[in-house]
């Protein structure tokens, strides 16, 4: 029996959803989170200068640097270095990011991401690391020819003493062809903020408990199996 079930609503993927995550190698993956396409952080958008000490994604329209900015912070009761190390092996991301099928490391800067797109199709692109501070920050950017340009960064910030690490993942995306909404929906199959929220929750579960929480259980619904998460 597979040790984990990902919470997954997409039929196409559920067949292959059972994946052993801990430790070893699931195949590599792109970020669901990461899959928001991109512009560099802080670029474009707001014209008023905010005085609040909040991260850019929490700012209201008019203050926010870019409408395409998605970010979420989660506190994880583990040391920053451990979390960084897990994330930095991009192969691991497929284990908790919903629509990342695999990530393949090409060299010390570049990796190839395979993303599940609607209708059972896949999208691939190559991502390049733009900043790497062990235990602190990883930032990346898709290469020029990506179908959807994206850039992101994940920061590992010390929480209050004894409380672990605040992990803040931020992704900025660039509409592929045409409207922003269409491109993002195509890629994520889900609203980007929802995607980011769920991916980070799964990351926290995995790091704190060693498994991804699943409520898979029997029910009186004939079409459902007791080993799958449906909602």
């Amino acid at each position, binding site marked *: *029996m597979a*040790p*984990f*079930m990902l*919470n997954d*609503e997409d039929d196409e993927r559920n067949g292959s959803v059972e994946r052993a995550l801990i430790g070893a190698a699931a195949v590599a993956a792109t970020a669901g989170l990461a899959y928001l396409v991109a512009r560099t952080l802080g670029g474009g958008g707001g014209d008023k200068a905010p005085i609040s000490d909040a991260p850019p994604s929490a700012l209201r329209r008019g203050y926010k640097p870019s409408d395409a900015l998605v970010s979420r912070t989660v*506190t994880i*009761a583990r040391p920053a270095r451990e979390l960084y190390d897990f994330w930095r092996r991009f192969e691991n991301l497929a284990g908790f990011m919903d629509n990342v099928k695999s990530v393949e490391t090409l060299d010390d800067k570049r990796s190839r991401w395979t993303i599940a797109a609607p209708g059972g199709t896949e999208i691939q692109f190559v991502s390049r690391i733009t900043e790497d501070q062990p235990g602190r920050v990883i930032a990346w950017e898709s290469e020029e020819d990506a179908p959807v340009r994206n850039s992101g960064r994940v920061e590992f910030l010390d929480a209050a003493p004894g*409380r*672990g690490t605040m992990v803040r993942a931020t992704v900025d995306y660039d509409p592929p062809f045409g409207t922003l909404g269409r491109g993002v929906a195509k890629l994520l199959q889900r609203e980007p903020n*929802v995607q980011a*929220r*769920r*991916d980070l*929750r*799964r990351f*926290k*579960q995995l790091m*704190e*408990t*060693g*498994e*991804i*929480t*699943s*409520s*898979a*259980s*029997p*029910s*009186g*619904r004939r079409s*459902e*199996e*007791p*080993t799958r*998460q*449906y*909602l």
Partner: protein
Amino acid sequence: MRALTWHGRHDVRVDTVPDPEIVNPRDAIIKVTSTAICGSDLHLYDGYIPTMRAGDILGHENMGEVVEVGSKSTLKVGQRVVIPFTISCGSCFHCSKQQYSACDNSNPATTSDMSETLYGYPMGGAFGYAHLTGGYAGGQAEYLRVPYSDVGPVVIPDGLEDDQVLFLSDILPTGWMGAVNAEIEQGDTVAVWGCGPVGLFAIQSAFQLGAHRVIAIDHYPRRLQLAKQMGAEILDFREVDVRDALFEMTGGIGPDACIECVGMETHGLGIDNLADHAKVWLKLGTDRPAAFRQAILSCRKGGRVSVPGVYGGMMDKFPIGAFMEKGLTMKTGQTHVQKYTRQLLEMIQEGKLDTTWFISHHASLEDGPDMYRHWHDEQDSYTKIVLKPGLAKGEVKAKQEKQHEPA
């Protein structure tokens, strides 16, 4: 296996469903030997909880025998265990503070969106209690999958009957935490609203924690009688004005602590259009939290109000003036079951707590739908129902009421 499934308002059925399987390394599967129907199940039965889906298996007060374990479970096949209704990971910030019902990891990443939208932060997971708390199957069934089985289950030593320990799963720790949250001091008079199982355990717990007097309030004579057996003075709210009575009985001071064990049926747990639901529920909520308001208005100056009764949405006409001007303290919450089970098990073993006297019926799973109807319609005579999958259909045993012998 056979299981009790929810199909809508007042529609509970016995169904044949697949057996549960181990899904994660820390899981265990138990063969259920006893599973009780709770006052909280009435809220589901009455259809007040919109995150139920037709076909959901009910039941959060469960115990049984371990029959299968995942590679990281610390349980052993053959052990008898009581399962806390709260599912807790044991390693998040909240679990480390023993705030187990606030566990940050036990509600799956997808279902936790609902309560985050509604309450600001996701609720912890729970068995058989709608998708707001994760959508886990309940244990009113032959078998139950228990996630994070190395954290919750209480291993039961030989020599204790199911009935003696079953309520460690919910209502005993709930009554106990209700009394702990009332911060009882020597000499205190404690008023308890509601003489259902939770209220009855709160009364017992209040005495254990040093209350001088307990005054219990309800309108069912049989339930008030049980409260009296526990040593409480009783008030039938049909006979008296509760506030007047409490004022007089406490010499014009008022109860030092008030424990509200009634709850509000009109939960505001909308899954869709949460904001709209909140408005609708707000309206429904206005006339239901009567006991809650009464507790605040009755409490003495500088006193404590403890609320184990379940609420879901918003309320208006909260007596904020009385609350502030009297300088009250309020504590509430879903019970942090795992925090109390060890201590309470010891108290059961030492005979300090009587956990069986108010059980009124034992019945089979097959008779479950009937039992839900009785629990709903005949609260006076059905004071607690325990379902036993091992019993045959029709084998309903109404228990002789046991005279309580004080410990």
